[in-house]
C-alpha cells in the first residue's frame, strides 16, 4: 500500500512550505513534492495602478530581497518610458544590488544554513538556529551578523531605509552616494573581507566532511540560466540571458530578457501555490533548469574581479562541465559575496557615484516593459503592460525561487530516497530533506508573491486517506 509523509512546515527557509514524501508498496520512496502554501495575488491587484508606483508596491512582495523587486520594477518602467538611464543611476542601482547580494547571502549562510553544518544534523531542533550559533561560537555569529549588517547599511546609505527603500524610480534613482556614506562603506570593507575568509575556511572544512551530502543533495542533470555580460562575465544587474546544460555547453545565449516568453513557460501544480517555470523549447518537465548562485557561476566564464576569479577556478573543478550538486549552492553564494565586495570596493573609487544627474524623464513611449535583474536567488522578471496613461493592464512576475521549483522537488526525492526506508522516519533525516530545500535558499514570500509556521507534522497516508502513522516534532 502506498503512503504519503508530510513535513509541515519546512523551517529556516524564508517562507511557508510543506513537503510530501510518497512511499511505494515496498516501503521505498517513490516520489516527493514540495508545496508552497501562501499566495497574495500581486499580479492581479496591481492592475489599474500607475506603473510609477510599482517599485514601491512590488518590493512588498519580499522583505528579504526588496531591492531586487524595486530594481526590476524600475527597469520595467525605464522600458515603458523607452529611456536610457544616466550612467550614474545605473552604477548606483548596481551598488545597491551588490549590498543586497551580501546581506541576503550572509543571511542564508550564517543565520539559516550554518546551524546544520556547524552544529550538526542531529543537534536538537530547539538549538538548531542562529541563537544556537551564538551560544556555540559567539565570535562567528557576530561576524555573520555584521556581514549581513554591512549589506543592509549599503542599502540604507543609498535609500535611507534598510527594507523597502523608496529610492529606485522609472528613469533612475532619487539620490547619489554621499561622501559620508562612501567613507563608511570604505572603512567597513576590510572587516567584510575578513569575515568572508572565515566563511570560506569553514565551508572548505565542511566540504571535506560532507562528501555524501555533495553526492546526494540535489545532484542531477539540468539546465542552468543566468544573466551574463557580452563576454560571458558574471552579471547581476544587466547583460543578457544564457542557458547552459550539465555538460557546460551553451544552448542559448545573449537573449534579451524582454523576450523571455520565447524561452520560459510556466506550469501549475495542483498541490502548490508555487508555479514551475521550464525551458520552453524542451517542454515540461524536461525543460527543468536551475537559477541562482550555482547557476550563475555555471553560466559565467569569469567573475571579472581577481579574488573571486581565483575561487571560481576552484569551484569549476568540482564538476565535469557544470557543477551539478545543489549542496554547492552554499559555496557559490560565498564566491558571490566575495565578488560583490570586490565590486563594491571598486565603486568606492568611482567619482561618478556622487553625480547629481540621476534621472531620465519621459512620458509613456512603449505600452509594454520588461525589467530583469539577478536577485540573490536567481533571475527576476517584471513584465508590465500599460495603457496610454501608464495604468497597468497586465502584470506577469517570474521570480527566482519558482524557477528552482522543479529542481527542489527532485532534490527532496533524491535525499528521501537515501534516508527513508520502511516505516521508520528518523528526525535527522527530515532535517536533511529540509536542508535540501535550504540549499536553494528559497524565498517563498517572493515565489508566491505570497507566507507562516505550524508544527512539523509527519503523516503516512494511505491512498484512501487513512492515516497509517502520525508523528509530531517540536
Amino acid at each position, binding site marked *: 500500500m502506498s503512503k504519503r509523509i508530510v513535513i509541515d512546515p519546512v523551517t529556516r527557509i524564508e517562507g511557508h512550505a510543506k513537503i510530501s514524501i510518497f512511499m511505494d508498496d515496498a516501503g521505498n520512496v517513490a516520489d516527493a513534492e514540495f508545496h508552497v502554501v501562501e*499566495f497574495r495575488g500581486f499580479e492581479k491587484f496591481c492592475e489599474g495602478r500607475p506603473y510609477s508606483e510599482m517599485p514601491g508596491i512590488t518590493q512588498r512582495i*519580499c522583505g528579504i530581497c526588496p531591492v531586487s523587486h524595486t530594481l526590476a520594477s524600475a527597469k520595467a518602467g525605464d522600458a515603458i518610458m523607452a529611456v536610457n538611464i544616466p550612467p550614474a543611476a545605473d552604477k548606483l542601482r548596481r551598488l545597491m544590488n551588490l549590498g543586497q547580494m551580501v546581506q541576503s547571502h550572509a543571511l542564508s549562510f550564517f543565520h539559516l544554513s550554518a546551524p546544520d553544518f556547524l552544529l550538526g544534523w542531529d543537534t536538537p531542533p530547539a538549538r538548531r538556529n542562529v541563537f544556537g550559533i551564538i551560544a556555540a561560537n559567539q565570535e562567528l555569529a557576530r561576524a555573520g551578523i555584521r556581514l549581513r549588517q554591512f549589506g543592509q547599511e549599503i542599502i540604507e546609505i543609498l535609500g535611507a531605509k534598510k527594507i523597502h527603500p523608496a529610492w529606485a524610480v522609472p528613469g533612475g534613482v532619487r539620490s547619489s552616494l554621499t561622501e559620508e556614506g562612501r567613507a563608511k562603506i570604505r572603512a567597513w570593507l576590510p572587516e567584510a573581507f575578513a569575515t568572508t575568509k572565515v566563511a570560506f575556511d569553514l565551508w572548505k572544512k565542511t566540504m571535506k566532511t560532507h562528501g555524501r551530502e555533495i553526492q546526494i543533495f540535489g545532484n542531477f542533470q539540468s539546465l542552468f540560466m543566468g544573466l551574463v555580460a557580452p563576454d560571458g562575465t558574471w552579471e547581476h544587474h544587466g547583460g543578457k540571458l544564457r542557458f547552459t546544460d550539465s555538460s557546460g555547453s551553451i544552448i542559448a545565449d545573449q537573449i534579451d530578457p524582454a523576450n523571455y516568453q520565447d524561452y520560459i513557460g510556466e506550469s501549475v501544480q495542483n498541490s*502548490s501555490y508555487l508555479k514551475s517555470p521550464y525551458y520552453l523549447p524542451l517542454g515540461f518537465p524536461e525543460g527543468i533548469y536551475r537559477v541562482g548562485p550555482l547557476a550563475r557561476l555555471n553560466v559565467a566564464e569569469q567573475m571579472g574581479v581577481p579574488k573571486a576569479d581565483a575561487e571560481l577556478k576552484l569551484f569549476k573543478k568540482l564538476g565535469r562541465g557544470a557543477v551539478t550538486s545543489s549542496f554547492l549552492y552554499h559555496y557559490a553564494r560565498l564566491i558571490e559575496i566575495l565578488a560583490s565586495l570586490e565590486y563594491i570596493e571598486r565603486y568606492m573609487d568611482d567619482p561618478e557615484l556622487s553625480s547629481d544627474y540621476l534621472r531620465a524623464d519621459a512620458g509613456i513611449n512603449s505600452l509594454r516593459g520588461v525589467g530583469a535583474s539577478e536577485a540573490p536567488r536567481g533571475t527576476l522578471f517584471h513584465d508590465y503592460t500599460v495603457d496610454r496613461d501608464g495604468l497597468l493592464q497586465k502584470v506577469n512576475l517570474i521570480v527566482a525561487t519558482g524557477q528552482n521549483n522543479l529542481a527542489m522537488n527532485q532534490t527532496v526525492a533524491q535525499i528521501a530516497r537515501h534516508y527513508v526506508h520502511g516505516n521508520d522516519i528518523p528526525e535527522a533525516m527530515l532535517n536533511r530533506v529540509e536542508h535540501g530545500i535550504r540549499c536553494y535558499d528559497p524565498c517563498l514570500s517572493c515565489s508566491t508573491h505570497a507566507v507562516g509556521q505550524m508544527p512539523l507534522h509527519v503523516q503516512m497516508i494511505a491512498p484512501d486517506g487513512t492515516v497509517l502513522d502520525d508523528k509530531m516534532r517540536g
Partner: protein
Amino acid sequence: MERLKIATVWLGGCAGCHMSFLDLDEFLIDLAGKVDLVYSPIADVKEYPEGVDVCLIEGAVCNDDNLEILHQVRARTKVLVSFGDCAVTGNVPAMRNQFGLGNADNVLQRAYIDNAQFNPVKPRQDGIVPLLRERVQPVHELVRVEYFLPGCPPPADCIKALMVQVLEGKTPKLEGRQLKFG
C-alpha cells in the same frame, strides 16, 4: 528572574518585518543572553509552545492556515504584538479586497490560469494548499492584541525600544518617532 519566552510568527506578509527584527544586529546577541526564542521561522521548532510571554506577529490573515495558527498563538501567548503594517492594517496583502466578493478567485485566475502555459489550474488540494479567505484582515479584527508596532517594516530601533521595555518588565509605550506607518 526566569528567562522570557519570546516567539515570532509570520502570517501573510513579506518577511520584511522579520528582516527588520534581524536588523537588531548585535543586539540579538544581548537578547540571546536574556530570552529564549521558543518559536520563529528562523528556528526549527514546529509546534507553537504553551506559555509564550511575548509574540511578535507579522502579516495579515490571508488564508485558513493563517487563521488556525493565529488562534493557537493567541491561546498560548500572554502578550501579543501586532507587528508591522500588514498585521496592523492589512496593508499590501489587503489590496486584493478591492475586488470585493470573489477576489480570491480573481487573483488566482490571473496567476494560475492567465499567466500559465502548462496545466493552468487553480491549486487546490485538501490538507495541503489552504483556501484563501474571502477578505484579507488585520490581526486585531480576529483576536485581541496587546500592542501595535506599525511600520513597513517597523525600524529595528522601534523593535528594540519595545523589547527593552518588555525586558525591564514595563508596560511598553511607544511614542513620537517610534510610531510610524509605511
